[in-house]
């Protein structure tokens, strides 16, 4: 099985993988420390809560996805499997795209609801200027 490459080629791939994963990881960590002000204290775009942080997060997610791709296709030999196997494993994972969108949206909504409750709890309720009803009561409803 998997005799698509010579033994020497296979060994080369392994050390290429070691270098690749190692270098990506080091770059990720150094970039994370840089973006969060641990290397140059005035540079903190990685936690500014805005565009800089979004860009930083995208870069990190991209690097991780590439590492995942490399592990699955070369260490787990997905690239040597037949198409049916590849698709039956990878296509179901697309469901996660919707899971991420839906649950992050939901999370944001939980936060908004909690903030609304906090504000409502702080509100000072003024008693109504005149508590006396001006109309008359009939069958439980106020007329006039």
């Amino acid at each position: 099985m998997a005799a698509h490459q010579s033994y020497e080629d296979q060994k080369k791939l392994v050390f290429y993988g070691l270098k690749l994963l190692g270098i990506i990881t080091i770059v990720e960590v150094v970039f994370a420390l840089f973006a969060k002000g641990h290397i140059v204290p005035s540079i903190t775009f990685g936690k500014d809560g805005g565009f800089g942080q979004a860009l930083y997060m995208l870069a990190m997610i991209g690097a991780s996805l590439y590492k995942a791709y490399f592990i699955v296709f070369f260490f787990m030999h997905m690239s040597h499997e037949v198409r049916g196997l590849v698709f039956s494993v990878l296509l179901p994972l697309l469901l996660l795209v919707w899971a991420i969108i839906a649950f992050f949206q939901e999370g944001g909504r939980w936060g908004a609801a909690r903030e609304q409750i906090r504000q409502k709890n702080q509100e000072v309720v003024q008693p109504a200027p005149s508590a006396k009803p001006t109309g008359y009561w009939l069958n439980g409803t106020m007329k006039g």
Partner: protein
Amino acid sequence: MAETSVSHAHETHEHGTDGNLWDGGKEPMKASYGKLMMWYFLVSDAFTFAGFLIAYGAIRFSMPTWPEPDFVFASFPFVKAHWPLVFVTFMTFVLIFSSVTMVRAVQEGHRENKRGVVFWMFLTILGGATFLGSQAYEWTILIKYENVSVNRNPFGRYIADGVMVDESGKEIMVNGAPVNVKKDESYLLHGHEHDGNVALEKKYVRYTSGAYAGQTHQVEEGPKAFGALFFFITGFHGFHVFSGVAFLTIIMINAMSGLYAARKNGYEMVEKIGLYWHFVDLVWVFVFLVFYLL
């Protein structure tokens, strides 16, 4: 011993190549039953982990603040200074190395090289055990010295600018100057042991910006869910590593005994545990991303 039980498995792989697909004997997708099922198990496991990590994301999104990973994870054995993310990078490298040695074991298996398989599997087990030890260290620091638990999280970030005050609202002076705090700055509330219970220190801040400007508040614990999510998700991953080490050990002993050499199927069992082991590394890529980098 190995010669008497030759290639039973090998024969079943060969016959039945013609005729109806449903007659059996033919491998759909050109992968053996065991390998195929390992792939589908890993798909289901991927959904489990994805569910946990997405839950982490959703809860994090719902909180006004969240502990900063490069502030929380900054311990290193025998080092007193703050070394953010260094130890966890070491752990990541341990897993990458053990993944690489696992690939080598699978390759030696294809060549029916028993010594090679056992040697590289042994290194893989060593890597897995080192990772588990490192995780035990990380958990010990968090639980014992920083008092994080599934329902307590002393790590937080200030929600607005402010100045530290005492209980009566008087500004605390250090060297004749007030202690200012900034929005999003991280803090750790230290614990004090009292009659066997740990109580967190009480600090007060008078905010000068944001919705609470002018008010004095006690500095609260950070989002409670942080500890539970951290211990549950890294614990679940660590449990995968632990089971992986157990299975690797069993399979290494079987390989040593000549069991797989007798099967003459290119050490397929090593290939299957290899798939599992790489998956554990793969999950770590995302745990590392979500907990330590973002």
